[in-house]
């Protein structure tokens, strides 16, 4: 009679079990293996010597913050793009031509010129900003906050241009917009030089 090998005893299957039912010799061996297995099952458990929860929790909270930041960055990025696009469309469609056309008195003429100047300054600042702002600004809260402000202003400007006249309001909005762009440029300039400094240090 061919007995089961150790390997067959360890890895039991239906055929092996059939043999075991008929063979006392192999059954005894199988019982010894079962005894070893029982002892293995009874091995002591170990207690974690340190509480890892604080670091696990910290990692989880950091992960959540990172996630939050990423989604707020995405939102800011969206606003940044839409804001640039809107402002560009206002500038390109020659809004300032409309400004002159809507002015018919001397007083209005002076104000219209001022608005015109503001639009040019906005255009210039916007170009500067565009050339500077890169990926490194994506996580900058202040930059993101200001671009959102810019977007709100653009929406207001668009509404103002839907109605004729109202030069005073236009003047006010373009001035506010100019201030925002100056601030944005300052942030991106700082960031830009920090990044260049970093690069210089690395070299």
């Amino acid at each position: 009679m061919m007995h089961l090998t150790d390997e067959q005893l360890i890895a039991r299957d239906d055929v092996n079990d059939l043999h075991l039912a008929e063979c006392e010799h192999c059954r005894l061996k199988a019982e010894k293996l079962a005894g070893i297995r029982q002892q293995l099952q009874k091995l002591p458990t170990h207690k974690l010597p340190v509480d890892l929860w604080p670091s696990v929790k910290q990692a989880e909270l950091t992960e959540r913050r990172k996630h939050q930041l990423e989604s707020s960055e995405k939102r800011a990025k969206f606003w940044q793009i839409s804001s640039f696009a809107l402002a560009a469309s206002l500038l390109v469609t020659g809004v300032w031509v409309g400004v002159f056309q809507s002015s018919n008195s001397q007083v209005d003429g002076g104000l219209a010129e001022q608005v015109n100047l503001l639009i040019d300054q906005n255009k210039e600042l916007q170009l500067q900003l565009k050339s500077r702002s890169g990926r490194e600004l994506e996580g900058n809260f202040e930059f993101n906050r200001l671009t959102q402000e810019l977007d709100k202003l653009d929406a207001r400007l668009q509404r103002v241009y839907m109605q004729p006249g109202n030069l005073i309001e236009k003047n006010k909005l373009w001035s506010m917009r100019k201030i925002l762009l100056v601030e944005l440029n300052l942030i991106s300039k700082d960031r830009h030089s920090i990044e260049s400094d970093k690069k210089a240090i690395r070299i």
Partner: protein
Amino acid sequence: MADSKGFSQQLPKAVIKAAKNGEIDALELIYRTYSDAAYTLALRICREPSLAQDVVQDVFIKVMKSIHSFREEGAFAGWIRRIVSNETINRIRRQNHLQLVNDEQISNLASESLFEQEWLMATRDLDSMLGKLTESARAVLVLHEIEGYSHKEIGDMFEKSESFSKVTLSRAYKALKKLADKPSSKIVSGNK
């Protein structure tokens, strides 16, 4: 909270649900319930307390991160245990601690004398004997004989075949028997 019942402990479904919703208290309860079991399993395989602690930390960070993907029809403890097993195997694989049997070794393997005497009954310190096995032998022994994974599952964890697991297991038994016969002998062939 955690006791010797290890992975056989079950948490109420409400706790799992709360954890999936990101509630920190529920996540902590999961950690408190299974961290000792996770540590025990990792330590049994790798035998290095600091490495086992690293494994446990990484496992629970992973659990927190991916709990939303846990399908509730499966056993939650089993899900964590699988992550612990995989993580431990990956760690020791990365550290090149594993000496894996090759095909040549697989073919010349067959014995009939392993279970003729009750050699293990005479051995008081099975735990320290396990410490003298190769990491792959110990890992397969622990995963198959204690944790109840199939050879197929173990083969997958090692990115090896089912027969790799089978062969490694019988080699582990042979090594254990040698150690039981000669308790002073340091280790069997092919060990690190």
